[in-house]
């Protein structure tokens, strides 16, 4: 019987594994390879390798300007999301009322409800407030979208954090701020770091809200990519996609290092 043979099941599992790896990684591998292509059009496998698309990317003011705009959004957005999110996580971990659940739900809402709704709502109101097409408008919107990630990462860490350490510091006469800075913060800093890293990645990759809020003058790189992909698939986009990908990979590696140091389990 086929179903009873051990070999059949081991073989099937092998096939599933290979198919999965190909399906999940093929888009990334293809993008990576094409970005180094020496051909003048999209073709795979490329006839040879060159850095022409990276040169084109860095010599084209549209790409450098939009990349720079993205960086100018992601740095303040990630810092604000980290500070606000960490502060909120600390407060919520100490509250025991029913309010804490409701407040956490409210702060997590931008993660749960579809981004298109957030984007449309923010766009409508920001236009009235004069924040449409401004860097600050985009930064505020990105803080809203990334704050839930910081909140959940730091909260998860605080759930296993031993509060007695902080109490001990207080009992030994440390003022609250000192106890926080010397005891709590060093212990939760890996979680704060990974929250900030993911806030940066999400902000860098964000498209939908940016699509609504940006103008040709203030335009993040994802919006520029979007309009290029819709028009024509030019290999320069593969080079930009690779930059975005390497950025995420770098953040993931940094996070892995932070987790290893803190002894937290790997995963999401």
């Amino acid at each position, binding site marked *: 019987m086929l179903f009873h043979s051990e070999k059949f099941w081991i073989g099937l*599992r092998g096939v*599933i*594994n290979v198919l*999965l*790896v190909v399906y*999940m*990684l093929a*888009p*990334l591998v*293809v*993008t990576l390879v094409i970005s180094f292509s020496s051909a003048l059009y*999209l*073709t*795979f496998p490329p006839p040879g390798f060159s850095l022409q698309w990276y040169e084109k990317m860095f010599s084209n003011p549209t790409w450098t300007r939009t990349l720079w705009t993205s960086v100018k959004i992601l740095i303040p957005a990630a810092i604000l999301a980290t*500070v*606000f999110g960490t*502060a*909120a996580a*600390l*407060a919520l971990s*100490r*509250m025991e009322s029913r309010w804490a659940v409701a407040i956490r739900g*409210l*702060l997590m*809402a931008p993660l*749960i*409800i*579809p*981004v*298109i*709704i*957030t984007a*449309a*709502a923010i766009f409508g*109101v*920001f236009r009235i407030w004069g924040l449409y097409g401004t860097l600050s408008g985009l930064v*505020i*919107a990105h*803080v*809203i979208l990334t*704050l839930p990630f910081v*909140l959940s990462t730091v909260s998860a860490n605080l759930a296993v954090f031993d509060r007695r350490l902080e109490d001990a510091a207080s009992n030994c006469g440390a003022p609250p701020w000192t106890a926080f800075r010397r005891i709590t913060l060093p212990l939760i800093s890996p979680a704060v770091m990974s929250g900030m890293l993911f806030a940066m990645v999400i902000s860098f*990759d964000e*498209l*939908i809200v940016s*699509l609504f809020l940006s103008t040709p003058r203030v335009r993040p790189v*994802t919006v520029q*990519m979007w309009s290029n*992909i*819709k028009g024509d*698939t030019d290999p320069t*986009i593969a080079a930009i*996609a690779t930059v*975005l*990908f390497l950025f*995420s*990979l770098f*953040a*993931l590696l940094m996070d892995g290092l932070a987790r290893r140091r803190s002894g937290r389990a790997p*995963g999401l």
Partner: protein
Amino acid sequence: MSFKDRNIWLLMPALLLIGICFLYPVSWLLQRSVSEPVWGLQNYFTIFSKTIYLGVLWNTVAIAGATTILCALIGFPVAYSMVHSSPWVRKILIFSVLIPFWTSILVRSFAWLVILQRGGIINDVLIGVGMMAEPLDLVYNRFGVLLGMVQVLLPFVVFPLFSVMARIDGSFVRAANNLGATPIRAFFRVYLPLCLPGLLTGAMLVFIIALGYFITPALLGGRGDIMIAQLIFERIDEFGDWPLASALAIVLLVGTGLLFLLINALLKIRGGRI
């Protein structure tokens, strides 16, 4: 100063920001959906009575549903394989699910275009080896949308399933086998029910996220694959039609919210039993 006072100050920045720049805009959207052009529910009636809007709603549910089923069907053997593989193979599998998870959807949709389009890799190969005379239409249709969406959403069903399967005691299935159950019967009566909490959570999560999807269907789909999020975007971006776009957004919001409550309820029931 007590902890209580400090908590309020720690919460203030996040609460103010979310309140003013998120909660208020969403309620503003809700208000516009019922106040324009005149007060009433006519925007909602329009959505649920015009064939084009009903068509988009149906597309949304159909694509999200198909994505969910495919993710469950693919995710189940993948999670199983992850749990029962050697640590080395497991690492590779987790890596290949996690890396794309943290890569932008825009990048991946672009890559699928490169792979699937008429002059793309797959068609090049098929024609090159003589299997096809004409390039296949693999993209700008439902196939392209589903291929792209399943790749993006698969991790959401694999990880909950993985964590549930990893905790299942193998002796249950062995006991069923020893008591004379065929492998298929043991699977359906013993193993699958034990996996159900993870499978349900993952599937519901995929369905909810898929309902609000925008980028993948917009890039990989055709005119016939428009989903609700694209319709909202188009109504605002091209026509400035706020009343209808707002009503569509609220329909999506309510649908998503109800499903989310349902997951929570399901998890609670399941949590009590297992």
